């Protein structure tokens, strides 16, 4: 099958949705002429014009709130927030407005919009351009949270996100944009709430998100050499979360490691660990381990940043500890 990068796969999803549905519009900072800082919307303004692919002022509350109003009145906007760090300046629009309107209005009105953004350290961009606080959106009822780890998933989840009648926070990972993988040319939607097992293994369930999937797959190669089988479960959407697939795997392996680039405290990994404790503790042979970013801001200096980013170097010691329990 033809290969695309993660960025190209999302671009193709946007292009196909915009061709099929006039209600789909794209807004954000530098998404037009520039094509987005990660080139996710490259070429789209050429095809669809400056009204449907709109370069906005640097004014996140204004244009994210604008998308809420547009979605309420029949459009299907896709808005880019250049880095997840910048969602903080439009959090009222996300948390108090887009997430709550359907419920607060008793089902009157819906907000079918997609907010694209990205997480991830590793580009020397320091503490305000590298964060991974996607778990925050998982905490808010009314939002769906998609988190693709491959080009294939990115395209299929984006098409589903645009077709979905609910507001979706679409979390991308900036280290994945250049990663290549097979992507079908036709339109396809990946339903929300369906995890994908990226690798089968008998000994440890590794629930991994976004770039942690790639990193866990590398760790799995190493573990295999030591005779340990990792089963990599990629939830693909954090809300809704496919608890069934996660728990099924945990019940099989009896060991759970959760790998997520968010901070360890009160994060995605903490939530998944809690679910295992509540619903599958009798199957666990070992304590649940979390491999996450430390509870510090993202540092700038390259050796500090490399130490900060959770990777194989952090996964392998956790694997060893888990295997100490028979």
């Amino acid at each position, binding site marked *: 099958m033809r290969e695309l990068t993660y960025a190209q796969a999302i671009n193709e999803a946007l292009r196909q949705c915009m061709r099929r549905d006039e209600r789909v519009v794209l807004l954000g900072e530098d998404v037009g002429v520039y094509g987005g800082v990660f080139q996710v919307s490259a070429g789209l303004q050429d095809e669809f014009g400056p009204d449907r692919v709109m370069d906005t002022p640097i*004014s996140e509350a*204004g244009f994210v*709130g604008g998308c809420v*109003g547009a979605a309420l009145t029949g459009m299907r*906007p896709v808005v880019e927030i250049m880095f997840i760090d910048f969602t903080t300046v439009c959090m009222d629009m996300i948390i108090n407005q887009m997430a709550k309107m359907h419920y607060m*209005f008793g089902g009157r009105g819906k907000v079918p919009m997609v907010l694209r953004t990205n997480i991830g350290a590793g580009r020397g961009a320091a503490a305000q351009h590298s964060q991974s606080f996607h778990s925050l959106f998982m905490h808010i009822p*009314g939002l769906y949270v998609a988190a693709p780890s491959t080009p294939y998933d990115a395209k299929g989840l984006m098409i589903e996100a645009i077709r979905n009648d609910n507001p979706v926070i679409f979390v991308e990972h900036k280290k994945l944009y250049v990663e290549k993988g097979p992507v079908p040319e036709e339109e396809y939607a990946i339903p929300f709430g369906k995890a994908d097992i990226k690798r089968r293994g008998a000994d440890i369930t590794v629930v991994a998100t976004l770039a942690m999937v790639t990193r866990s797959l590398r760790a799995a190669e190493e573990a295999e050499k030591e005779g340990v089988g990792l089963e990599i479960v990629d939830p693909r959407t954090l809300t809704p979360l496919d608890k069934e697939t996660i728990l099924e795997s945990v019940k099989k392996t009896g060991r759970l490691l959760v790998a997520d680039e968010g901070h360890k405290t009160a994060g995605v990994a903490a939530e998944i660990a809690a679910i295992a404790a509540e619903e599958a503790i009798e199957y666990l042979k070992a304590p649940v381990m979390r491999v996450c970013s430390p509870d510090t801001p993202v540092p700038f200096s390259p050796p500090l940043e490399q130490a900060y980013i959770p990777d194989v170097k952090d996964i392998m010691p956790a694997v060893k500890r888990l295997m100490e329990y028979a």
Partner: protein
Amino acid sequence: MKIPKKTLLDLYATMFRIRCFEERIVDLYARGQVPGLAHLYIGEEAVAAGVCAQLREDDYITSTHRGHGHVIAKGAELKLMMAELFGKKAGYCKGKGGSMHIADMEIGILGANGIAGGGLPIAVGAALSAQWRGTDQVTACFFGDASSNNGTFHESLNLASLRKAPVVFVCENNLYGISVGQFKHQPIKDIAIRATSYDMPGVVVDGNDVFKVYEAASKAVRRARAKEGPTLIECKTYRWRGHHEGDPNQGRRYRTQEEIDQWKAKDPIERLANKLMEDKVAGAAKLAAIQKEILQEIDDAVAFANSSDFPAIEELYEDVYVEGSAQ
């Protein structure tokens, strides 16, 4: 500006309807029949009535925490409003929203809003949506003096003017952001001057004179519909009650009785009634007949709310998401 007789009587009815609705809430609130918070619009009726009289049913409004007047003027059903305020299942939001979240997409009410300044970007988005969909719908955006200090005010005026979005920004300057007087929360007297920064017309009107509001809104709506861009209208007005029902002594901790009385003397409804009688548009008997009909509507709304059920506990979990995938 020559206003047709029917419109004049409609304006009177709308303002009287808002006043009576709010006065009934005062009573019901004091007797503990309305739970939660209620921010009343008494004294500001001319603003909502004058602006909404210029809108079509398919035009949009965004509203505020003090939203009863706006939604009544846009055509909301009193029964559904009252039931909502009672927290009943038959209410506008099935009892999930209450006073601050009345919405009715069918008649363009995109929601009252509990966040000061929260409605402004949403209004601009609805206006952009009309542009994308190729309609001539206009959005009226209500907000207060205090919200004009919020970033969303500036971001919204900037974006709307940049895109020539069909929005009418209606600032209800009632002189207080909760307890903080305008002179303490901003260094300017006329908020309308802020329009200059965004290259749009800004006008100040007497918000207690429904004719002035109606006329300013007429120009602004015409301009928006003609795709010439947004306008900022500042309506100087005053809330008679406290910030919310329960604000001690109707806000006399931060304002004087004398000031309240001065504004009560400028009662927009009395001014309109006097004008209608002076100009022989309607006599006292005609106005009394309108009043009687509205009082009956309010009684009916209260009876409807009283006779409705509270939502079942299972409904707590409903409508978090739109069920089923779209399209």
